[in-house]
């Protein structure tokens, strides 16, 4: 039995909003019951408005729950906010906790003081983060002059400086280029391996989920509709992949390739899209079946993105 880091029981939150002259109640989180153990990496996905941010705010003591109970790192987030702050680090993709007019180095120094790190602890942790997040080249640059990728790395360093047991990342890779995303993910994987850090992230990026998370929570209208692995989720909704092939010359629709479904043709058959289920066949087998039929110029395999999976789950429920 591992330690429990997050435990909620029928957790819910309503908002009162003004609608013209009348007030009405909007349910942001309906009833969330979930347990996250130490060292887990959890992807929390769902459409916009599914209550992800509200949940994060209740876990960190920013919002008071309307009903149910919540414990984070064994503490009650609202009354124990200050003690909890020493054990939780949050990265908001859209807002900064750095000082925009100060060099990254100074921001980290202030945060070390805020979290009362000792001199040795501060130096060791800063050195570690600077090296692993490759902050060295812009440590002396004011935050406002950083590129988005650099800033996100600095934000992550800022949130992790006090070595929190639980790290919550809200859309950490939004707007980043492929290389920056890759670096950030590698860092988080290593952080988890080295320090046993529990990760919880909200994302719209399938890459984040695949490379970082071994468990997925999917929320719909403030309730959990799926809790399991990515493979399990794909099985539930059918994670059909799509093979896109560009052919040397116009070819009649390839609608009889075994284990595939012909999804469409463009340019008189120059580009064709074939759907297949990765549990039934592989891209290689489909290609082998095609090789006798037409000359391939180019190909791509498309995976369903988070939005697509979420959409399929929601559609199946309604």
């Amino acid at each position, binding site marked *: 039995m591992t330690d429990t880091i997050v435990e909620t029981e029928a957790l819910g939150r309503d908002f009162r909003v003004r609608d013209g002259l009348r007030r009405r109640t909007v349910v942001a989180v309906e009833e969330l019951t979930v347990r996250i153990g130490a060292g887990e990496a959890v992807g929390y996905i769902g459409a916009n408005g599914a209550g992800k941010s509200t949940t994060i705010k209740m876990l960190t*003591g920013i919002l008071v729950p309307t009903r149910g109970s919540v414990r984070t790192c064994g503490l009650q987030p609202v009354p124990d906010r200050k003690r909890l702050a020493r054990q939780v680090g949050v990265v908001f993709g859209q807002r900064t906790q750095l000082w925009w007019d*100060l060099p990254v180095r100074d921001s980290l120094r*202030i945060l070390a*003081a805020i979290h009362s790190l000792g001199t040795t602890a501060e130096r060791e942790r800063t050195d570690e983060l600077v090296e692993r997040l490759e902050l060295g080249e812009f440590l002396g640059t004011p935050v406002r002059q950083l590129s988005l990728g650099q800033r996100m790395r600095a934000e992550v360093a800022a949130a992790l400086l006090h070595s929190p047991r639980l790290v919550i990342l809200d859309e950490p890779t939004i707007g980043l280029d492929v290389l920056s995303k890759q670096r950030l993910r590698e860092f988080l994987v290593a952080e988890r391996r080295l320090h046993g850090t529990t990760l919880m992230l909200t994302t719209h990026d399938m890459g984040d989920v695949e490379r970082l998370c071994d468990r997925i929570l999917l929320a719909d209208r403030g309730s959990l509709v799926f809790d399991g692995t990515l493979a399990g989720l794909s099985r539930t909704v059918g994670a059909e992949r799509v093979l896109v092939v560009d052919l040397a010359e116009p070819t009649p629709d390839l609608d009889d390739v075994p284990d595939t479904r012909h999804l469409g043709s463009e340019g008189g058959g120059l580009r064709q899209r074939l759907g297949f289920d990765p549990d039934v066949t592989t891209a290689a087998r489909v290609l082998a079946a095609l090789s006798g039929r037409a000359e391939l110029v180019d190909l791509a395999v498309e995976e369903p993105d988070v939005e697509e999976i979420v959409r399929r789950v929601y559609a199946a429920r309604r």
Partner: protein
Amino acid sequence: MVDLTPYRAVLASRVRAQRTYRANFLLDLSSSLLVGLVELAEVWVVFRSVDSLGGLDLAAVVLVFGLADLSFSLADLAFGHCDTLPTYLRAGTLDVFYLRPQPLLLQLITSDISLRRLARAAVGVAALVAGLAMNDVPWSAGAVALLVLAVVSGIATFAAMFVWAAGAQFYLVDGAEATNAFVYGGRYAASQPASVWSRPLVVVFGFFFPMAFTAYLPVVTLLGLPGPDWMPDGLGWCAPLAAIWAWALALTTWRTGVRHYQGGGG
């Protein structure tokens, strides 16, 4: 014992940042100085046409102005940025404060410091010194104590106004204009003799927001002047009580505001 290191670290960085942009800072300083001088000139202009205002002559009014202005600008220096709370609320940066192991209000107060207000405080000091020289002050240990008490309580009272205004932002949408009317209106009221105020003003700035206690009442007590009829003698000594009342009001408003923000019920 409260560990002050976090607050010191933030404030030191703010001071450094303001010194870094030197030209900008000098410009801020001089514009702040200019505004202070213009407001002082206003007192002089008024006394070009009258000899006395609410039972106070020019010398006494300069003293009131100096006391009020010094206290306000020092409070503004340390607490004035609290009115940026609406910006924090909109940008969501207030949530960042929640993720740090310090009390929210202390974080907000120590999140910035406006050194340019020093220019304004200099105007206040000049007016205060001139006021003390122009009046026939019955100097005694008691008089010094009254002055010190007035400045310290005045700073605390104005600081409480800024905190009150910040707390009110939680439930006012775009409420900075509304609260500014009281904060800056209060500052203006404080630098005038309260004896000329109309009754609603006396209620609002005499007692609810105790602005009369920051400068006018201590000066009346100090100079032994006849005050307005609604005031008993020696009310100037009650400035600390006014400060305590102002803070009680401020902290209650702040607490209610935070509860409202978190949705735990007001």
